[in-house]
């Protein structure tokens, strides 16, 4: 007796990077049993090696258009773009982790397993072309991040962050799934390709479909922490161990925006008149709340959390035109945000190894005199987040604004420009505080070789991409040509 497997679309090559990441997680799981407690740094090494292999396996996917497993995942340039971005973020996170974890007495092997699991979920989400794989990717990354946020088991703040993230995340998953159920009911399929085929211009009056898309958007907006679904962000970012915040603030947002692009731009272009307005509203809301509340924050982790909400708004602006140019700007912004925000949080991580209260802005007073290197790179990241040339953040905003002008979308553009000027205040305030005279001597710990290398490399990348943005822009424009 034989079973015919052709037609199922089994193609392991298309998900090879994901498989390698999951495989690395399993290897680390077993190594954790035999590696002595004082040698857990090796696990970070194994993690980085596995991720490098996954990175190498991602490059061949570039330029392909390979749907696999019954149209549930696809290996294309967009997936490859996000694979490279997400793996790079995870490698950098793994490199700055050991010192921070040791300082906080959290040096357990499970950390790397969960980190790899979350990365695999994000990569799956970026490659997902079916409601099922989108759900699976989101849950895989979320469940790993719930545990990672509560990784500091004795710190009540970390536990509180984990609980809030878990409950609000589960709530958002409920909405996401109900939306998926309604979309399935309206179109009769769960793959995005079939949904796109079933969604004609006439579907613009299909209530079931529209409510489904609305609920799905709520779930996705939660993941990218766009207002008004952002309530969890400041608490979770503040309470979670800083190195976890570093990772999730950039990686989750990137992966979720890949799914948003595939859903709105590739699947529902024919009813763009229906989703344009709610999405524009969410973007404007995020810009307002993120930038205005960030001004009042004295805790640098909370400030960066609100700044992250604002940046979610800018990234969403690139989706609004529904064009390849707009999505190119979105992808460039995601890459730029990943670089500069990772850097900013990594500085907080490097300083945070010193204890709990280091995230208070008062601790940063006079940092230029105490830690010239950290203060210098932090200045670069702050300037970039504010969007001041010659940093990558300037071009990120420029390209998004450009795509809005081309599409003649004026109201969100005006809000974005005004809010950018508002944002100068709280980014530059950090620099001013660091330049102020220090009050007194504070106990210092050294940064360490791998952390300072990572920080230096990210700072160089921030400036380099600000001088030569076309490198990433070419990749982004190639990856952004989405269609079904």
């Amino acid at each position, binding site marked *: 007796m034989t079973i015919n497997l052709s037609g199922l679309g089994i193609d392991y090559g298309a998900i090879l990077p994901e498989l390698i990441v999951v495989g690395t997680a399993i290897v680390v799981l077993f190594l954790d049993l035999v590696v002595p407690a004082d040698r857990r740094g090796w696990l970070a090494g194994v993690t980085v090696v596995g991720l490098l292999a996954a990175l190498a396996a991602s490059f061949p996917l570039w330029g392909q258009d390979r749907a696999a497993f019954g149209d549930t995942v696809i290996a294309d340039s967009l997936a490859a773009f996000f694979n490279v971005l997400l793996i790079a973020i995870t490698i950098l996170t793994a490199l700055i982790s050991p010192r921070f974890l040791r300082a906080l007495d959290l040096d357990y092997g499970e950390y790397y397993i969960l980190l790899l699991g979350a990365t695999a979920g994000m990569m799956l989400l970026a490659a997902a072309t079916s409601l099922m794989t989108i759900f699976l990717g989101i849950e895989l990354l979320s*469940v790993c991040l719930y545990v990672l946020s509560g990784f500091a088991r004795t710190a009540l703040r970390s536990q509180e962050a984990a609980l809030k993230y878990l409950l609000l995340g589960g709530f958002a998953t409920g909405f996401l799934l109900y939306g998926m159920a309604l979309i399935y009911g309206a179109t009769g399929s769960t793959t995005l390709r079939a949904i796109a085929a079933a969604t004609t211009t006439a579907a613009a009056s299909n209530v079931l479909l529209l409510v489904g898309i609305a609920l799905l958007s709520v779930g996705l907006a939660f993941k990218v922490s766009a207002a008004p679904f952002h309530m969890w962000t400041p608490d979770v970012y503040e309470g979670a161990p800083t190195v976890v915040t570093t990772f999730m603030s950039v990686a989750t947002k990137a992966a979720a925006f890949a799914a948003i692009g595939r859903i709105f731009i590739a699947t529902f272009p024919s009813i763009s008149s229906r989703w344009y307005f709610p999405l524009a509203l969410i973007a404007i809301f995020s810009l307002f709340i993120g930038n205005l509340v960030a001004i009042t924050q004295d805790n640098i982790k909370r400030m960066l959390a609100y700044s992250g909400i604002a940046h979610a708004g800018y990234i969403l602006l690139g989706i609004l035109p529904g064009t390849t140019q707009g999505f190119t700007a979105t992808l460039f912004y995601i890459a730029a945000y990943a670089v500069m925000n990772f850097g900013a949080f990594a500085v907080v991580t490097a300083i945070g190894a010193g204890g709990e209260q280091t995230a208070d802005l008062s601790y940063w007073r006079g940092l230029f005199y105490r830690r010239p290197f950290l203060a210098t790179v932090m200045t670069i990241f702050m300037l970039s987040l504010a969007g001041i040339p010659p940093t990558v953040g300037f071009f990120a905003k420029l390209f998004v604004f450009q795509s809005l002008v081309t599409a003649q979308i004026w109201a969100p553009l005006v809000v974005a420009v005004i809010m950018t000027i508002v944002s100068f205040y709280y980014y530059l305030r950090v620099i001013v505080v660091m330049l102020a005279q220090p009050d007194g001597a504070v106990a210092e710990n050294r940064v360490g070789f791998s952390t300072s290398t990572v920080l230096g490399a990210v700072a160089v990348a921030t400036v380099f991409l600000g001088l030569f943005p076309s490198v990433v822009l070419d990749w982004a424009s190639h990856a952004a040509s989405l269609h079904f």
Partner: protein
Amino acid sequence: MPVPAYTFLLLSGAVFTLGAIGFMVRRNPLVVFMCIELMLNAVNLAFATMSRYLNSLDGVVFAFLVITVAAAEVVVGIAIIVQVYRAGRQMDVDELDLMKE
């Protein structure tokens, strides 16, 4: 016995709404978590209804996927709730307010 599909969808919508309301008004994290499960069950009912109505298997497969993933989420969720209780002996979500703006 033919039953119109919308009755099941109405039931599913009602259960989902109850879960969402429960999520917002209840204080005990365990009960709040149960309300999330209620919402997911409403989703499963909707998927099963659609699947039967459309005569396609995708919806039922999706419902099983939801059940499996929800089980994984419960494992992690209960562990976190127990850990919060151990760390702070606090069983009221309104009093978890170490971090305020």
